[in-house]
C-alpha cells in the first residue's frame, strides 16, 4: 500500500495531470460563476425593462375586445379524481374573452372521467379533427350540455405513459392559433392568458418605414415564473395568500425556482436565448409547434425538446423568432416533499437533458442555428450537462489529494470559501431582484426564511441535486427503463390526500 502511495506521489505524469486538471477546473469554475454574474446583470436589465414597459398597460382592455386572439388551454390529467373538479373550475375562470379548455383524461384508472361527466354535464359528441401530432388513440370526446361550460372539451384517450402524449392529443383538437400547456393540478393566476399572450402581440409585424430597421420576429413561445404552492392558502382553485413552503425540501426548491426563473430565464430573455419554457406553464404558437412535430412522448425532457425543435424549425426555414419570458409568477405548483419523489424527478430531468443534447447534437456549436447553437446549446452543454460531472471529478480529486497528503489546506479552504460565497451571492441577487420587482411575501419572516436557504443550500440541497443528476446520467448511459413516479399530491387546503396508480406519469415542472 505504502509502495503504491509512493509511486502515485512520485509519478511526474500524475503530477502534471493533476496540475492540468486543477487549472482546467479553476478556469471552468470561474467561467461558470462569471456567466452567472453576467446573467444576474442581464436579468436585472430585463426585469426593469419589463416593468417599465408594462407599468402603464391596462390589461383590462382585452377582456371585451373582439381583436383578442383565441387561446386553447391544454391540460392532461391522469388519476386526478380528488381535485379534478376544483382544478377544471379554476381553468374555466380565466379573465380572457376567447379561450377553450381541453382536458385530456389520459386513461385514468380512477374516477376522474366519471366525476367530470357528472359535474359538468358532459355528453359524448361526434367530433371531427385531424391528427396533426402522434398520440395514443382517442376514445371519446365530450362537450357540456350546460352553456356555462361551453368552453370545456374533455378528451378520453388511451394512456400514453407520458404528459407529452396527452398534450399532443389536446393540441390536435386545439382550434386557436395559440395554446397554453399546463398541468391540471397547477394553480394559475386568473390573468395568465392575458399576461402570456401580450409578448406575442408586442412584436412588430412589419418593418419601420421611417428607419427601415427590421425588428420583425415571430414570438413562438412565452413563459412565466413558477413557485411552490405547498404552504400557500388556496381556496376553490384560487391562490389567496402566497407563502414560502414550511418544509425544507420544497423551500429549497422555491429558492431554486426563483433563481432559475427570475435570474436565469429573464437573463436569457434579454438576448433572446431562453433555453426552455417550462412544461408547467407555457404558451405556444400552435402552427409552429405542430410543424416542429409537437411533444415527443419518448423524451424525458419534453418541454425543452419541444422548444429546441421549434427554434430549430424556425432557423432551418430562415424565419426570425423569439421566445419570451415574463417575470411574473403566474403558476403555483406542488413541489415534491419526499426525497424519493424529488430524486426521481431530478434524475428524470438530468436524463432528459442528456437525451436532448444527444438527439440534437448537430445543433451544438453550430452557427447555422444562430443563438440556439452558439449560446443556448453551448451553455447547456458546458454548464448544465458537464457541471455535475466536473464537480464529481473535483470531489474525487480532492479525496485523492487528501489521501496522498498533497493537499494545501489553506488554498483548499480559500477555494471552497470562494465557491460558497459566490453561490450565496448569486442566490441572494435572485432573491433581491424578486423582492425589488414583486413582493409576493408579506412578512419579513417569510423573506428571511427564504434567504437563509441560500446559506444552507451548498451543504444540504446541492449535494442531493448532484447525486440525482449523476444517477440520471447513469440511467441514460445504461439505458435503464424509467419507472414513472408516484407523486402523492397533498392537495390544497383541507383536502384529503389522494392515491394514484403505479404507472402514473409524474406531473413535473422544471425551472431550467
Amino acid at each position: 500500500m505504502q509502495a503504491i502511495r509512493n509511486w502515485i506521489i512520485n509519478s511526474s505524469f500524475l503530477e502534471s495531470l493533476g496540475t492540468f486538471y486543477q487549472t482546467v477546473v479553476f478556469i471552468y469554475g470561474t467561467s461558470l460563476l462569471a456567466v452567472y454574474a453576467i446573467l444576474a446583470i442581464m436579468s436585472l436589465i430585463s426585469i426593469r425593462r419589463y416593468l417599465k414597459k408594462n407599468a402603464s398597460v391596462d390589461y383590462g382592455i382585452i377582456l371585451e375586445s373582439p381583436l383578442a386572439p383565441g387561446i386553447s388551454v391544454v391540460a392532461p390529467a391522469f388519476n386526478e379524481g380528488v381535485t379534478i373538479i376544483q382544478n377544471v373550475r379554476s381553468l374555466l375562470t380565466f379573465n380572457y374573452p376567447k379561450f377553450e379548455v381541453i382536458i385530456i383524461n389520459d386513461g385514468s384508472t380512477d374516477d376522474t372521467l366519471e366525476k367530470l361527466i357528472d359535474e359538468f354535464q358532459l355528453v359524448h359528441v361526434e367530433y371531427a379533427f385531424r391528427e396533426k401530432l402522434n398520440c395514443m388513440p382517442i376514445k371519446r370526446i365530450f362537450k357540456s350540455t350546460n352553456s356555462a361550460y361551453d368552453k370545456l372539451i374533455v378528451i378520453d384517450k388511451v394512456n400514453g405513459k407520458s404528459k407529452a402524449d396527452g398534450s399532443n392529443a389536446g393540441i390536435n383538437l386545439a382550434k386557436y392559433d395559440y395554446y397554453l400547456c399546463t398541468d391540471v393540478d397547477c394553480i394559475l393566476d386568473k390573468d395568465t392568458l392575458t399576461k402570456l399572450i401580450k409578448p406575442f402581440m408586442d412584436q412588430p409585424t412589419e418593418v419601420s418605414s421611417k428607419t427601415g430597421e427590421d425588428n420583425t420576429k415571430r414570438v413562438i413561445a412565452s413563459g412565466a415564473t413558477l413557485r411552490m404552492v405547498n404552504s400557500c392558502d388556496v381556496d376553490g382553485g384560487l391562490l389567496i395568500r402566497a407563502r414560502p413552503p414550511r418544509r425544507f425540501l420544497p423551500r429549497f426548491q422555491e429558492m431554486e425556482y426563483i433563481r432559475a426563473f427570475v435570474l436565469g430565464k429573464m437573463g436569457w430573455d434579454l438576448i433572446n436565448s431562453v433555453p426552455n419554457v417550462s412544461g408547467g406553464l407555457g404558451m405556444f404558437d400552435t402552427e409552429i409547434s405542430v410543424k416542429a412535430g409537437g411533444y415527443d412522448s419518448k423524451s424525458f425532457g419534453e418541454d425543452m425538446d419541444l422548444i429546441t425543435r421549434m427554434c430549430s424549425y424556425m432557423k432551418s426555414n430562415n424565419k426570425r423568432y423569439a421566445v419570451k419570458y415574463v417575470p411574473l409568477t403566474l403558476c403555483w405548483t406542488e413541489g415534491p416533499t419526499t426525497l424519493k419523489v424529488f430524486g426521481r424527478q431530478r434524475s428524470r430531468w438530468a436524463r432528459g437533458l442528456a437525451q436532448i443534447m444527444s438527439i440534437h447534437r448537430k445543433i451544438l456549436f453550430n452557427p447555422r442555428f444562430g443563438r440556439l447553437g452558439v449560446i443556448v446549446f453551448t451553455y447547456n452543454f458546458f454548464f448544465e450537462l458537464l457541471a455535475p460531472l466536473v464537480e464529481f471529478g473535483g470531489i474525487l480529486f480532492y479525496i485523492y489529494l487528501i489521501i496522498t497528503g498533497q493537499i494545501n489546506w489553506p488554498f483548499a479552504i480559500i477555494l471552497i470559501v470562494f465557491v460558497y460565497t459566490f453561490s450565496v451571492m448569486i442566490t441572494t441577487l435572485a432573491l433581491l431582484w424578486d423582492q425589488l420587482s414583486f413582493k409576493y411575501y408579506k412578512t419579513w419572516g417569510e423573506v428571511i426564511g427564504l434567504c437563509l436557504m441560500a446559506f444552507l443550500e451548498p451543504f444540504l440541497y446541492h449535494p442531493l441535486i448532484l447525486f440525482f443528476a449523476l444517477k440520471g446520467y447513469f440511467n441514460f448511459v445504461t439505458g435503464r427503463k424509467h419507472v414513472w413516479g408516484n407523486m402523492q399530491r397533498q392537495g390544497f387546503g383541507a383536502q384529503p390526500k389522494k392515491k394514484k396508480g403505479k404507472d402514473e406519469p409524474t406531473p413535473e415542472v422544471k425551472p431550467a
Partner: protein
Amino acid sequence: MFSSLVALITSAYEQFIYLPLFIEIAIIFIYVAIIATVTAYSVIMYKRWQAYVEEKRLAFISPKIEAMITEQVLLNENLEKIPVDDIEFDQAALNDQAFKHKWVRQAIIDILIQYRRNFRGEVGELLRKLYLDMGLMKEADEKLKNIHWEVQIKALTELTRMDISISDVTILPLTNSQKPELRAAARNAYVQLSKNEPFKFFDIATEPILPWDQLELFKIITTTKDIPIPNFSRWVSYSENKSIVSFCLKLIAHYDQQPAIPAVMGILNNKDHYFRADAINCLGKLSAEIAEPKMLEIYNTQPLNCQLEILKALGRIASGKHLEFLKTEFLYSYNFDIRMHAARSLIKHNTPISRSMVDEIMNTAEDEAKLIIKHCQNPLIK
C-alpha cells in the same frame, strides 16, 4: 492606530502578491461576493422598509384627500345649480399645507383619476376643475417634458383621463416615437383628446401599430363618445403603412362601412397573402356579395390561409350562389381544414337548397364527410 492599520494592510498586500494567481483571483472574488451579498440584503431590508413607510404615509394622507374631494366635489352645494365653470372651491381647503408636498400631490392626482373613472357628467367635470384649480396640470406638463419616456407616458395618461387637450405640436411627434410604448400612449391620447381630427396621425404614421396597440386603440375608438368616425377606406387605399391598413380593415368591418367595399377589394391583388386574408375576412364580415365572383376567381391561386378565408366569407355572405362550389370543395378537397370550412359555410346558408345538399351528402358520402357534417351541425361545438 492609523499607522498600525496601514502597516497591517501593507503586510496583507505583500503576502497577497506572492500568492498563486488563481488564489489571488479567488480572494478577490470572495471579497466581491461578500460585499455584494451584504449590499443585497441591505437593499432588500431598505426597500421593504421604504414600502412600509410609503404604505403608512398613504394610509395617513388618503382619507384626508378623499375627505377634501368629497367636501369640495361630491357634496358641493352648487353642483347642478350653477354651471361647473362658475363653481368656486374653498381655497383654504385646497391650499392646506399637507397638500404641498410633491408625493401628496401625486397621491391627489391618482385619487382624482380613480374618481374620474367612476363619475361622469357634472361631477366628472368638477373633478377636472379641481385638478386644474389645484395647479396639478403643472406636474403633467413637467412630466411631458421629461426625458424619460415612461414619465411622458404617465403625463399622457393623466391628461387623457382628465380630458385636458394637448397641442398637436407636442403630441403628434410622439405618435411616431421610436419607443413603441410611448408611441401607443400618444396615439391613444390623440384619438381621445383631438376633437376635430382624431385620426390625423394615421396620415403621418411611419411606425407600425403593434397588435396589442391595435387592441387598445380599437377599444378607445369604439367606446369614446362623440368621436367623428371617418370612412376608413381612405387609408386602405392610400396608406403605405400596412398595420394602419390592417387596422382600418377591422374598423371598417366593425362600423359596417359598406362604401369601403371597392377599396377593400383592391387589396385582393396585393402581393402579401396575410394582407389579402385580412381583406377577404373584412369582405365576409361586410357581407359583400359583390366581391364573391372575384374571390372565386382568385381562389385556386391562393395559399391555404386565403382559401380558408374565402370559404368563411362565402358562408358569412350566404348569397346561395356558390353552394355547388362549397359542395365540391367539401367532397373533393384533400385538405381537412378546407373540408371543415366548406361544410361550415354550406350549413351556415341554412336555405332549403343547402339543407337538401347536406342531406344528400349525409346519405351518400363516406364516413369522414358525415363526421364533419355532424361536427358542424352540433350546437354544442362552436
